[in-house]
């Protein structure tokens, strides 16, 4: 039985940031980390860049190779935790190693969701969340001369895979259930701009559609998909990128409170003492929804990992809540979306009074700026093609600043700190005793 002060399950963003936070407060306490992936910590969003040959395998690493050594981490890589016993504070790995902990962090991440459909076990059908997935897809493309692919799901992962496949000269058809791509993060106008750009580089987008069945071509292999309207699309590769769900099995089986994600308090502690959770697996406070929600994005995972790490190391710090946000460049069009981007999609119960939208859409240049306001405070933005200094808006959202006095400047291309009230500007730049 191994004994450790800190145990972290997971090896991605939340886990790594927790390691760093723990080591900031406690240089020596023993620290073990377990991950079912056999590799050094890597950047998940980079796997689509890797597939598209934009980065080499060695550039994927999220931290230098000395990371575990320098942080005195005993890493069990390629080992799966099969059970968690909260009462005796120990876990058991698949090779029957037991690890006893004082403080535990569950950073188990998310798992891709694949709906039941005939043919889903054929060779050539993949999900796309891990490095292993990317390597498998890459190998498959190289050995089977893939010319056509179908990507199921027009969300961010689906579109990043699409971009990678297009870079490999593979013809791509995106099949999206909603009436537009990126429906979760964008509004209609922004979706249309990206859809147009994707079509411009030779990609087909079939919206209001779904794959009913995957059909065999060569024995055992994908040959085509059949859509719900009966259309058949030939392809040798299918990537299912419908969405990711929090990986909560381990927590649930151990009796930890779980809803859609693992439930945590403001210190990111779960329902069980000494067990914390962070990252895509949790459901923590969402500043925009004003309720607990899973926000499966990297900055949130990093923040939560860090805060959980501080709390585990005995330096209490509260999590201020997260804001859903994404920055993604597709077909050469940079976009940023933060917070609530489309009030019209809110369900009746979620609708709040005092919401309004100001926007600037220059159709010819595909430039789009949209700001969603609620009682004179920004709650969401979409920026397409002009994204510079976007973080100023994000800061205003986070700090809940009343924009009434500078509203007229918000959409201007030279909007900057100068447009902000002097007091707030001073506060921002003075953070550490610097005057402006």
């Amino acid at each position: 039985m191994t004994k450790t002060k800190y145990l972290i399950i997971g090896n991605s963003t939340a886990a790594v940031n927790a390691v760093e936070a723990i080591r900031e407060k406690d240089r020596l306490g023993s620290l073990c980390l377990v991950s079912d992936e056999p590799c050094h910590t890597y950047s998940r969003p980079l796997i689509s860049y890797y597939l598209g040959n934009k980065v080499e395998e060695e550039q994927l690493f999220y931290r230098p190779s000395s990371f575990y050594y320098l942080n005195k981490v005993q890493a069990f890589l390629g080992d799966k935790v099969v059970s968690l016993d909260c009462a005796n504070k120990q876990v058991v790995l698949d090779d029957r190693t037991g690890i006893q902990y004082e403080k535990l962090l569950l950073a188990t991440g998310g798992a891709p969701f694949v709906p039941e459909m005939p043919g889903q076990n054929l060779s050539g059908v993949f999900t796309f969340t891990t490095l292993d997935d990317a390597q498998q897809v890459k190998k498959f493309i190289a050995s089977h001369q893939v010319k056509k692919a179908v990507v199921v799901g027009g969300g961010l992962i689906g579109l990043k895979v699409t971009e990678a496949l297009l870079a490999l000269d593979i013809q791509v058809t995106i099949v999206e259930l909603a009436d537009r791509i990126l429906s979760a993060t964008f509004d209609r106008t922004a979706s249309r701009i990206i859809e147009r750009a994707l079509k411009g580089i030779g990609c087909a987008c079939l919206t209001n559609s779904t794959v009913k069945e995957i059909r065999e071509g060569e024995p055992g292999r994908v040959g085509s998909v059949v859509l719900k309207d009966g259309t058949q699309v030939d392809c040798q590769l299918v990537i299912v990128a419908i969405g990711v769900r929090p990986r909560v099995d381990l927590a649930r089986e151990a009796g930890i409170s779980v809803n859609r994600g693992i439930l945590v308090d403001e210190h990111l502690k779960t329902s069980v003492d000494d067990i914390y959770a962070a990252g895509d697996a949790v459901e923590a406070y969402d500043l925009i929804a004003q309720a607990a929600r899973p926000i499966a994005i990297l900055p949130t995972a990093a923040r939560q990992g860090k805060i959980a790490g501080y709390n585990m190391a005995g330096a209490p710090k509260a999590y201020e809540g997260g804001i859903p946000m994404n920055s993604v460049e597709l077909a050469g069009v940079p976009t940023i979306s933060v917070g609530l981007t489309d009030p019209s999609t809110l369900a009746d119960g979620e609708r709040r009074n005092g919401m309004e939208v100001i926007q600037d859409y220059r159709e010819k240049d595909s430039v789009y700026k949209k700001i969603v306001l609620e009682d004179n405070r920004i709650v969401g933005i979409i920026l397409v093609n002009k994204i510079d200094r976007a973080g100023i808006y994000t800061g205003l959202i986070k700090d809940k600043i009343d924009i009434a006095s500078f509203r007229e400047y918000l959409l201007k291309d030279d909007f900057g700190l100068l447009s902000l009230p002097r007091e707030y500007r001073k506060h921002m730049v003075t953070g550490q005793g610097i005057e402006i």
Partner: protein
Amino acid sequence: MKRIVIREEYCMGCRLCEIHCLVQHSKSKEIVKAYKGEFPKALPRVLVEEQGYLSFALQCRHCEDAPCLEACMTGSLHRDAETGAVICDENKCVGCWMCIMVCPLGVIARNTEGKKAASKCDLCAGEKMPVCVQNCPNEAITFEER
């Protein structure tokens, strides 16, 4: 750590800081080549904001609790152990612009000439004093232990 202090009441909006910064971060470190002969052309990492009589030079504050460090998906943004500066490893950066999305000061720029990479103040690593401070004719930015 030593930080750049902004004193807006002394800024004249001459933008010499921007020019010196660009040259310092060019390959040749010569002004004519830096502006006319290099590809990719370096960007200034300091920005002068100006409106009427008011102006100031703004660059990365190297925040203690830096949101860009948390948002960086590649690990290219990191804190220099010696100087405390937030540094971008431009070779590792892929230009996802997550840092731009979260920087509340808007001081990270997109360099899209050649390889895409985030461009930000590095406090002129290797210099005793950042060149913007060295060359400010009116001490509108100073370099002080804070």
